[in-house]
């Protein structure tokens, strides 16, 4: 459509984009009805093939028709009189989205797997302020997307200065950091165990529950599994269960990390930074160093040995209140050198750890009480009243737990530190994954101190520092020192002429 590139007339998306809409509709339908679909798949033997395939066919045709209608009723154009970008859509419920051009902050062009297959792109418009409505065009050709992006930016340029950056960003880019597959693999096998474990557990429990609801215990008999495990020596069965879970977690981790972050590159142009990544769906994110409020670097013992860390960058939210996911950018698997390069890019100079502050020993005592004594006491009383297991066994389990929890609590206490220098506040915490959060004092929005009434005697208290990208808090420390720091930070914020964003 060469004649349509001035965008003043309402126009539709690429016709081939119907495929994308179709895929999206199918995806939504499956997501809504997936337990049902699963049941069909399990009982496929016993079902009438004609009804099954006929029904599926009819549903597909209906969905296709719906997708075509979606395509047909979706139009977009630029209204130059009112200076608005207008999207009209909806088959049954008509929606008209208008965006004032001067409010446009970013125009992103992304591509998902399906969009890649049919060679169309998704164009998303990011606005300033608390506008809840999101504007995106999900199937548009690359040339048209670029043309529209340029046009939108040119039109919003007059009143918006960020747009000027966008233009220059198109000019030239140089690759700043490219994260290779090896680093991703390293991160994949060393992080997110808990999250993947939860995912796997959730996945299996949902599937099991749904299967059992339909077919009863015929297909998967829990007793069978337990019987089989009982027939093995106890050590073997523990190793077996543990091994299966561990392999699953590792696989899930590896696959997730590689698919999500494949070919992670950071590109730098004159005054903006952009990130590209993704194997199936490519993401394209713009990072504005001025908007960065907090940076968290995390590394565990294995990762230290393998020289990989992950860096999380928290930008000021574009929304009024809540933090949005897109304002948190994760850079997985960079080496220490790359991490320093990124930090230097964001902060001009490398953050230095200043004066060290430690928590009071009572923090250790409190944590030992809540995470060690308390659980043991609960299991003791429960076992005492219900006699679940033999007391010898309880002793063994408790000992294992004490050693395990004790180590974790000790390390989380040992790693809990606050470093304060003139230009940086760095907080370090964590037992296994050690997080180092960095903020700059002049980006503090509010300071809050807390003290339990019984802490007055021992002169202990806590402080939390809010920024537009998240909060840092330091608890159970010398309250006099905290108050002195608060006075110093307030002074720094209040004399600061720098813009925090």
């Amino acid at each position, binding site marked *: 459509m060469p004649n349509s590139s001035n965008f003043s007339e309402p126009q539709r998306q690429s016709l081939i984009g119907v495929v994308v809409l179709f895929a999206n509709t199918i995806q939504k339908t499956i997501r809504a009805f997936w337990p049902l679909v699963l049941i069909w798949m399990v009982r496929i033997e016993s079902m009438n093939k004609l009804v099954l395939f006929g029904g599926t066919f009819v549903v597909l045709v209906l969905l296709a028709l719906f997708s075509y209608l979606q395509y047909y009723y979706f139009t977009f154009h630029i209204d130059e009189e009112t200076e608005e970008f207008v999207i009209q859509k909806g088959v049954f419920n008509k929606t008209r989205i208008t965006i004032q051009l001067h409010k446009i902050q970013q125009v992103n062009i992304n591509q998902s797997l399906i969009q890649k297959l049919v060679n169309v792109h998704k164009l998303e418009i990011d606005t300033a302020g608390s506008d809840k409505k999101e504007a995106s065009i999900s199937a548009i050709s690359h040339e048209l997307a670029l043309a529209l992006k340029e046009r939108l930016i040119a039109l919003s340029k007059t009143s918006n*200065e960020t747009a000027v950056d966008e233009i220059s960003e198109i000019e030239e880019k140089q690759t700043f950091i490219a994260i290779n597959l090896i680093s991703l693999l390293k991160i994949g096998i060393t992080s997110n165990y808990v999250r993947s474990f939860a995912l796997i557990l959730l996945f299996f429990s949902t599937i099991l529950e749904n299967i059992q609801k339909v077919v009863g215990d015929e297909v998967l008999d829990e007793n069978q599994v337990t019987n089989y495990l009982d027939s093995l020596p106890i050590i073997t069965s523990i190793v077996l269960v543990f091994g299966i879970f561990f392999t699953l977690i590792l696989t899930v981790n590896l696959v997730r990390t590689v698919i999500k972050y494949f070919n992670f590159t950071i590109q730098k142009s004159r005054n903006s930074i952009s990130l590209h990544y993704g194997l199936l769906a490519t993401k394209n994110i713009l990072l504005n160093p001025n908007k960065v409020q907090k940076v968290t670097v995390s590394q565990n013992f294995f990762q230290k040995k393998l020289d990989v860390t992950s860096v999380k960058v928290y930008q000021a939210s574009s929304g009024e209140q809540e933090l949005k996911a897109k304002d948190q950018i994760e850079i997985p698997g960079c080496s220490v050198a790359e991490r320093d390069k990124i930090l230097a890019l964001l902060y001009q100079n490398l953050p230095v750890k200043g004066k060290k502050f430690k928590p009071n020993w009572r923090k250790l005592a409190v944590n030992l009480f809540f995470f060690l004594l308390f659980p043991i006491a609960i299991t003791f009383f429960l076992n005492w009243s219900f006699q679940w297991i033999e007391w010898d066994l309880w002793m063994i389990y408790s000992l294992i737990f004490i050693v395990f929890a004790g180590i974790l609590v000790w390390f989380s206490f040992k790693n809990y530190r606050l470093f304060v220098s003139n230009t940086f506040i760095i907080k370090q915490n964590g037992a296994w994954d050690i997080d180092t959060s960095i903020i700059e004092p002049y980006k503090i929005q509010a300071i809050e101190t807390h003290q339990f*009434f019984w802490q007055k005697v021992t002169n202990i208290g806590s402080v939390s520092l809010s920024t537009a990208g998240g909060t840092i808090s330091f608890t159970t420390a010398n309250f006099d020192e905290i108050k002195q720091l608060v006075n110093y930070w307030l*002074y720094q*914020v209040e004399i600061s002429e720098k*813009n925090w964003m």
Partner: protein
Amino acid sequence: MQQQPFSNEPLSISDLPKFETVPLQPLQKKYFKVIAFNILVFTIFLFSGISIAYTMFIEEFTVMTGVVVVGFPLVVIVIILFFARLGFRKKGYAFRTHDAIYKSGIIVESTTIIPFNRVQHVALHQGFISRKLGLATIELFTAGGSTSDLQIPGLLLADAQKIKELIAKKINPAATENVVSIEEENKPQSEANDA
């Protein structure tokens, strides 16, 4: 952003103004009536719920259950009232040249400090009872999310308006009357120094 060399003359941290020694203003005495009224509304709801339950299970009520069902909530309300009174006395605020301080809490004593040059906008709230008593609540919004917004209740309306204007002036000296415009004008500035 232009990197300003952070001039740092020998500055004795102990000479800096101390937030913890600032004398705090108590809230208006009248404000306790608002708190008491809220507790009263809660009490009425609670006991109407209990009486509905009473009419439904009338046969199963004995003197003993009656004492428990009425007595226990009463004790709870007295405790709530007691803590509200105690907490009310603990609350205090102060406005310094550059920031607002608000202290509250019985079990956890917390002090919130918001520098004026981080305030995005200011709002005044007046509830039904507050309006009758001529009181108002002032709320300072920052970009730090809802946890870092500061609400100071129990101010005289006239004072609250004065404070609001004062802060509005500090946020943006150009616009003094229209506080709403401040919110909008603050934003474009923030991206203005990319060079």
